[in-house]
């Protein structure tokens, strides 16, 4: 059963909701919990009792690839119901997060404008939005990260902040900070003397994972970049509302304006799977360029597919085809050592599972579509320069 119901921290940049708007969001969260805990478990039964025997009858062996599992599971009625409901829950989630923002956008923008004294915000309206963001709206957020509806727009950021809490069903803590917090815990346990003076967070969106660094390394100068202006405006307002001075800047992680050898720590959180094969090479190379010698690169993702059974991989791969995550599959099957080597890193490559810092998270250690943050561990990929 899901953990006790906890609400998101109500910082002052978060959109206000009417009674019914909030009730609609609560329903979506309950819907998602129902799918994870009541509907998803039946998939294994459907596979063992129906889909797998049907494959074996034809091929005289069990399915060995995602495609082979898919060939029978996509015909299974329980898979069809689960997928159809999960896709619908995703659409309802965005809709429920959009309604209060659409109703009150001008006041959200006015509130964000007032908070400009903490940290900084540098926008570049000429920055091209990469094709891997514009081809489809990633994870089905209408308008993606980047769409702007009006001047000084914060809509996409405000929607994202709330939707991520619903998406993870609170499993990333009251500030959606679990990926940052967990990485810092791992960092402090494994590099106890590491005290970064300058930190860069790539693909920061609204700063869920950025602020933990500002909080844990209060003496450090924290920079955060993203390609999407509405995310950054909201991120800046949110960081200020929560009292953290962060320098937000609209830049593409593939080619930043920072000087060579300028950061002690470069991090990203669920950035890599939303890029492309070409972009990821540029990003790792850019990490190497901006890191000081001895500096650390750490990218946080869900774990690679290697070692998972074909059935588990098929379910974990659901987002690739069903939630507008076109690079999800390939990004979980990369030659991570080769990527680091090609970018100039010589030290041993870091590929570890870091336990969730959020104690309430049930550590199921399993990864499944529709249960983001529910595994209780994060995968860290990185290298020291």
């Amino acid at each position, binding site marked *: 059963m899901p953990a006790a119901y906890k609400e998101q921290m109500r910082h002052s940049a978060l959109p206000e909701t009417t009674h019914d708007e909030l*009730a609609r969001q609560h329903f979506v969260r309950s819907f998602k919990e129902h799918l994870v805990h009541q509907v998803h478990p039946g998939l294994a039964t459907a596979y063992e009792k129906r889909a797998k025997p049907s494959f074996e009858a034809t091929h005289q062996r069990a399915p060995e690839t995602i495609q082979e599992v898919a060939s029978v599971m996509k015909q299974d009625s329980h898979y069809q119901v689960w997928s159809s*409901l999960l896709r619908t829950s995703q659409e309802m989630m965005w809709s429920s997060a959009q309604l209060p923002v659409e*109703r009150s956008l001008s006041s959200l923008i006015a509130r964000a404008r007032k908070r400009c004294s903490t940290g900084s915000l540098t926008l570049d309206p000429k920055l091209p939005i990469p094709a891997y963001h514009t*081809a489809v709206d990633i994870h089905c957020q209408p308008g993606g990260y980047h769409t702007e509806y*009006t001047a000084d727009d914060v809509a996409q950021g405000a929607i994202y902040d709330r939707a991520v809490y619903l998406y993870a069903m609170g499993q990333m803590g009251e500030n959606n900070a679990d990926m940052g917090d967990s990485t810092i815990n791992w960092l402090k346990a494994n590099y106890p003397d590491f005290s970064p003076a300058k930190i860069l967070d790539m693909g920061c969106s609204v700063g869920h994972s950025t602020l933990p660094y500002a909080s844990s390394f209060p003496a450090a100068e924290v920079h955060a970049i993203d390609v999407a202006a509405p995310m950054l405006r909201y991120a800046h307002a949110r960081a200020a509302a929560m009292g953290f001075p962060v320098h937000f800047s609209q830049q593409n992680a593939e080619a930043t304006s920072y000087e060579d050898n300028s950061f002690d720590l470069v991090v990203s959180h669920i950035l890599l799977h939303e890029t492309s094969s*070409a972009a990821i090479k540029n990003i790792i190379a850019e990490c190497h360029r901006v890191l000081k010698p001895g500096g650390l690169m750490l990218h946080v993702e869900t774990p690679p597919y290697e070692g998972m059974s074909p059935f588990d991989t098929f379910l974990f791969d659901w987002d690739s085809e069903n939630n507008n995550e076109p690079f999800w599959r*390939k990004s979980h099957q990369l030659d991570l050592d080769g990527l680091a080597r090609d970018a100039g890193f010589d030290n041993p490559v870091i590929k570890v599972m870091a336990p969730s810092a959020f104690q309430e998270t049930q550590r199921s250690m399993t990864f499944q579509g529709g249960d983001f943050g529910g595994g209780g561990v994060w995968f860290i990929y990185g290298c020291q320069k």
Partner: protein
Amino acid sequence: MSSAEPKLKRRAKGKRPFYFSDPDIDRLLSMLMALAGELSVTRDRLDTLERVAQAKGLLSQADIEAFELDEQALSDRAARHQVLFKEVTRIISAELEGLDDSDATEYAEVVAQVERDD
């Protein structure tokens, strides 16, 4: 809803997958869940009302049965019904919104594009 606020896109760009042999089943399921959602919203509101009223010692069953709707209450309710219909039939309107989109890129092409090495 204030008419001064911009209208947000309600459909995510990208071809929506359907799962049943007849996509109308997916559409119906989507509407059914939206309807369940709106029912839950209503029940939550009722729950709030009852808890507040009870805490203040205000509620009695007789008061509820004797209540008469005035014009304002009727208009408020009618406006809420419109929100309910929009939510329940969202999948239909989103598809219509999609018909105006100029992007005709097939999803497989998008995958190939991001997986390309050069």
